[in-house]
């Protein structure tokens, strides 16, 4: 599973978009609600301020004074300042100036309700002419900053207040405790948050479902594609149930698979044809050379020529087999037949097979074969082990030693073959698994891995390449280590299969 899946990223983007939309909607709804609420409160306050002011004008002592209005100029004269009344809450104001509220206005206020509307009425000297019982004690007369009869608003702590000054400089103020309204707004915010969260969750669940549905054909395509392997190239993605956009992709993949299948078939055909074309002439050479050798009338010279032909034919035969085997391993035609087996057991059999050859060269084989369970192709692995042992014998010193060891480590099967030969030079070491690589090809006689010309060199140069191909087909690794003049070590590591 990759860290960044399309599904995850799509969902993340959808969640982000949805959250933005919901937040925008929530803020707008909140603002709208808040403005409405305050407008309503303000309207109510203004209505009351005006009612209060009207009452004060109608019933106040400021009707035309007895004896008519004073002459012009005297009108604006301020009455002398009076001390504040002892009972500011009383229905009677301080001397001379009392404000009576009409029943109609009174009904607008409910003194008993601490959260209801309250009022206060000041004279131009900031004397309290009248105030309601529920007016907060901290109430002060606002500064006059607007023309008469224009209502002004303020929010003071939990109170929303509206006031205006009349022409006489008296101030009527009506207020209201808006704690409950603010609490309601907070509840509204909570509601918005919860509703938004719910919508977000629902939206994400829905998008998750949609995304999964939309990606299902992709999964189907990838499942089919992963089923298609060297041994099963004929399967195709079913494009009938796939939408046009993905259908195009599926078609492209299908045509790629078809090309791959054709290429594989071609390769297979080529391998088979090459096998036939190469083996038949070698058969002819071998048969005739052997006929010539069997003939009683052949001279020594003829015999020598036939022997040379036969040797060359045998070498070509091994080479052809090795090349074809490599080709089959490369193309995946030769599949590994995995079966539970004991690597130590396979190694024992291989050692027994090469023991006579080792004895011929006075080489001792030491074994340390611990049981080593592994699921592999025992025939193929035996081929690898035999090849390593044959090399270890071939490149050893006379009276040398070979150590073969198997061990199980962290579930991996490990096999090591060590010889006491002349070793491999460091610069040759990386190339020993290459095809036809011969360490002695340039500086023939003085090099390690010197080949005795009398021994058959058939197939040499491909043995390690084939071994590597077989081990890699098992998912394992093969490595070579060497100390010149001391010996070489080949190690196979076969990791256990993930079950």
């Amino acid at each position, binding site marked *: 599973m990759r860290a960044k899946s399309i599904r995850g990223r799509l969902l993340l983007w959808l969640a982000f978009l949805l959250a933005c939309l919901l937040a925008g909607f929530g803020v707008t709804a909140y603002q709208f609600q808040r403005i409405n609420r305050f407008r309503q409160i303000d309207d109510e306050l203004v209505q009351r301020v005006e009612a209060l002011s009207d009452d004060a004008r109608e019933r106040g002592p400021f009707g035309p004074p007895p004896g008519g209005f004073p002459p012009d100029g005297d009108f604006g004269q301020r009455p002398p300042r009076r001390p504040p009344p002892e009972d500011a809450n009383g229905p009677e104001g301080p001397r001379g100036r009392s404000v009576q509220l009409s029943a109609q206005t009174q009904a607008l206020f409910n003194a008993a309700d601490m959260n209801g509307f309250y009022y206060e009425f000041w004279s131009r000297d900031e004397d309290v002419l009248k105030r309601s019982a529920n007016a907060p004690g901290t109430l002060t007369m606002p500064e006059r900053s607007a023309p008469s009869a224009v209502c002004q608003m303020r929010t003071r702590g939990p109170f929303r207040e509206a006031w205006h000054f009349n022409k006489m400089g008296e101030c009527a103020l009506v207020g209201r405790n808006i704690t409950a309204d603010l609490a309601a707004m907070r509840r509204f915010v909570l509601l918005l948050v919860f509703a938004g969260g719910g919508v977000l969750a629902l939206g994400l669940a829905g998008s998750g479902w949609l995304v999964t549905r939309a990606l299902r054909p992709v999964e189907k395509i990838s499942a089919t594609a992963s089923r298609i392997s060297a041994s099963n190239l004929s399967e195709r993605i079913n494009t009938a149930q796939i939408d046009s956009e993905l259908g195009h992709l599926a078609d492209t993949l299908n045509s790629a698979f078809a090309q791959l299948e054709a290429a594989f078939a071609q390769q297979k055909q080529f391998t*088979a044809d090459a*096998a*036939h074309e*190469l*083996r*038949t002439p*070698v*058969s*002819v*050479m*071998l*048969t*005739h050379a*052997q*006929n010539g050798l*069997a*003939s009683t009338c052949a001279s020594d010279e003829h015999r020598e020529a036939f022997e040379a032909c036969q040797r060359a*034919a045998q070498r070509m*035969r091994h080479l052809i*087999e090795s090349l074809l085997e490599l080709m089959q391993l490369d193309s995946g035609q030769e599949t590994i037949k995995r079966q539970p087996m004991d690597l130590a057991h396979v190694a024992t059999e291989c050692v027994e097979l090469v023991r006579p050859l080792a004895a011929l060269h006075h080489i001792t084989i030491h074994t340390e074969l611990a049981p080593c369970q592994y699921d592999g192709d025992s025939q193929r692995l035996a081929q690898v082990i035999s090849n390593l042992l044959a090399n270890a014998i071939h490149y050893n010193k006379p009276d040398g030693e070979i150590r073969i060891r198997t061990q199980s480590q962290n579930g991996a099967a490990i096999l090591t073959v060590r010889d006491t030969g002349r070793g491999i030079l460091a610069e040759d070491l990386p190339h020993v698994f290459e095809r036809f690589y011969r360490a002695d090809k340039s500086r023939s006689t003085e090099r390690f891995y010197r080949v005795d010309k009398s021994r058959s060199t058939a197939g040499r140069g491909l043995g390690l390449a084939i071994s590597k191909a077989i081990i890699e087909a098992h998912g394992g690794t093969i490595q070579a280590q060497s100390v010149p003049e001391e010996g070489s070590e080949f190690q196979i590591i076969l990791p256990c299969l993930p079950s």
Partner: protein
Amino acid sequence: MKLLVVEDEPDLLKGLVRALRRDGYAVDPAADGEEGLYKAQNADYDAIVLDIMLPRLDGWELLARLRKTKSTPVLMLTARNTTADRVRGLDAGADDYLAKPFDNMELLARLRALIRRAAGKAVPQIEIRGVMIDTRSRIVTRAGQPVALTAREYAILEYLALHRGEVVTRTILYEHLLDESDDTLSNLLDVHVFSIRKKLGHDLIATRRGQGYCIES
């Protein structure tokens, strides 16, 4: 012993025929599938060496058609050496399978084994009243002493020994011992039998007058 070799590569066919004849077999060559099938159906061979890739009629088809009428032992010879090919060959009715290129020694050994098995003899030695015939080394001993036989004499003796208890007609002997290239006179057979009797004792091969020869069991 008479063999049929079906192989389309002329040089290989020539080499095979020569190798087999040197080993004492009577060998008929066939260069393609149709010729091979015709010969295989119309003569009694002791074994057939059959290539798979043949023009006109391939080895599989030839084998399938031949098996409808005859159970002649067939050794398949092929350049395709995969397990699937080997299994297919054996399942199609081949008795053995040899991949090209091969060593002549191995081909000869396999043919001997094939003919021996077809005659119902599992071991390569046949012992008849003090006469030991080793089909592997083609050496005949009488009371422990090797007896020198010509290739033709040996072939007659081996054929009769492998068909011990049966009366083998002169015609059958001619068919199995002489190939198309031979134009030997018929009375030569009597000369060879006379010679064998001289070397191995008169009572070994009985003459059934008017029928043929027989080694009694």
